[in-house]
């Protein structure tokens, strides 16, 4: 408190000399020592929506991995990223000491095989992105600035989707580069890797939407984590069980359609139809119609999630 007062009186005394870092327009200020330059107005450029949205996107993306936050919040994303990467490294090691001519685990199936880790990542890190702003009411400060609600939702959505794409894409890149070094056929590998990446984009968009919608429902982080975990893991388990039973019973239609109702199987069905990648599903969505429905439903989910978030924040900002 004393410091403030001292600072205050000093500034008052020094004010007439003005700022000495440039010639004083009133012709008084060429003294050599800056005691206190007082309040300076900002006369630089004020950047627009694009820059503002990008700033929020970058800080949010860093936030997903705990960068710029406490050491504790870096731990989980780091562990999960390592867990995603480890199998890729093991596979590369296996390829390089054996004579395999193709990847033992298809690019398109990597995220499916490790969907548990991806699910935990989404569940743990989406609340980090949105519940945090709601819980501490920082959201008020955002909306009192030239940041539109749609920009906020877009930045957060893009940040989580990008984080997931990194989480899934980096191991794929490791697989690809490792495969190249081990002398796997270039053309085919590149095509499959490309397909795997496109699939990863689809999955990232789907999971980011789902994670954010549930996380934005509640300012309570633990609650949000639990809901997202349940929705992802339970739906995945349930869908697979129903499909397996239906398959055994000979109901192939149901066995294929039921995959619509879990994000990871929806992704698998859509990418198999779109990119003709190897599939992990027991039964594919029935025919061309099934494939189209899976793709459209995936698009619908992403747009729907964005819409729900927008509605949610429209209410928030007015409150």
């Amino acid at each position, binding site marked *: *408190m004393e*410091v*403030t007062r001292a*600072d*205050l009186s000093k*500034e*008052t005394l020094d*004010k007439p000399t*003005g*700022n000495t*870092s*440039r010639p*004083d327009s009133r012709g008084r200020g060429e003294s050599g020592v800056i005691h206190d*330059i*007082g*309040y*300076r*107005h*900002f*006369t*630089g*450029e*004020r*950047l*627009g*929506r694009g*820059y*503002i949205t990008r*700033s*929020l996107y970058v*800080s949010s993306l860093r936030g997903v991995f705990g960068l*710029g*936050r*406490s050491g504790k*919040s870096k731990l989980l994303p780091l562990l999960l990223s390592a867990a995603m990467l480890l199998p890729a490294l093991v596979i590369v090691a296996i390829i390089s000491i054996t004579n395999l001519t193709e990847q033992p685990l298809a690019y398109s199936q990597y995220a499916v095989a490790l969907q548990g880790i991806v699910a935990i990542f989404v569940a743990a890190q989406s609340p980090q992105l949105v519940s*945090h*702003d709601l819980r*501490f*009411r*920082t959201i*008020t*400060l*955002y*909306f*009192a*600035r*030239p*940041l*539109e609600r749609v920009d906020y939702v877009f930045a957060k959505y893009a940040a989580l989707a990008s984080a997931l794409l990194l989480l899934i894409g980096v191991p794929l890149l490791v697989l690809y580069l490792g495969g190249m070094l081990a002398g796997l056929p270039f053309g085919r590998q590149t095509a499959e890797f490309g397909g795997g990446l496109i699939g990863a984009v689809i999955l990232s968009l789907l999971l980011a939407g789902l994670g954010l919608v549930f996380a934005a429902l509640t300012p309570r982080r633990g609650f949000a984590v639990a809901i997202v975990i349940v929705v992802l893991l339970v739906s995945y388990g349930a869908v697979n069980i129903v499909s397996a039973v239906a398959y055994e019973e000979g109901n192939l239609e149901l066995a294929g359609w039921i995959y619509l109702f879990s994000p990871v199987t929806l992704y698998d069905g859509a990418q198999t139809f779109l990119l003709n990648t190897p599939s992990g599903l027991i039964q594919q969505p029935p025919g061309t119609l099934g494939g189209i429905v899976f793709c459209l439903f995936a698009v619908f989910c992403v747009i729907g999630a964005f819409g729900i978030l927008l509605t949610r924040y429209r209410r928030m*900002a*007015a409150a």
Partner: protein
Amino acid sequence: MGVVPEVRPPDSPIVDDVAVIETDRLTKRFPSVTALDDLTIDVGTGVTGLVGSNGAGKSTLIKILLGLQPATSGGARVLGMDVTTHGSQIRGRVGYMPEHDCLPPDVTATEHVVHMARISGLAPTSARERAADTLRHVGLYEERYRPIGGYSTGMKQRVKLAQALAHDPQLVLLDEPTNGLDPAGRDDMLDLISRIGSDFGISVLVTSHLLGELERVSDHVVVLDGGRLLRSQATREFTRKTQVLSVEVTDTDDRRGDEVLAAALAADGLVIRHDGRLLHIDIADDETYDLIRDRVVGLGLGLVRLQQQRHHMAELFRPDGGEPDGGDQG
């Protein structure tokens, strides 16, 4: 390098002739309550106090001025821009300090203010410079490198103020900035607000439910009651009526202390009212405090209480326009 240093003398604020805030028959109805009722006010440069009890419509007015809530009817302009069509531009040139907590606990004050400056459109380098500047101006030094979670209420209020100033706004809207502060912190915050209006050349709209604290720093006071305009006038007119000290003294062995003191002070030309054992004394000037102290000592009395009165809104409802009396809290 976005910041071009510039010192503007306090007597030349950015906006000279444009009214900073104008509302025209502004009305906001919620399903169960009318928050603002046919409100027409005109706020100029400098510090303006917006006074009203809880629920008088202060926060609703701020939300409408920021373009975050639509008005039910009527209109408002901020810095000459219409709130319904130019919300984003207004928010680019206005700073807002909310009443409630709004700071993330796990980042440092510097990181938070830099981030908020960028969200207001300042390039990274400018944002860092502005954050350092504003944090220094609000009186946060080494603490600004520590996570906000460990701050006292007073420090948090300073960070909230700093983020509102980070982008060098032309107008700041401060919602109950003294809430939760102890008397010393309250004084510091009021000093800061006064400096923002005079030294920084930034217009201020500051709300409070206490008229007493706003009249100290405001050039103009607007009083709301139940969403309606009760009064809008220059502070001087309020001040004349409300600068009052409450004094309580011990008795001597043979005489009542308050009577002796009242007689002595009346001889000095001060205006005094009795309220039981309390004396309410109009403050003539800064000398009044010393005079009272010297008289108390001179008469051999013990000083139990010497307190500046804060007047509640209730006084303004009285037909005589707020003459203080002893019934109100001190």
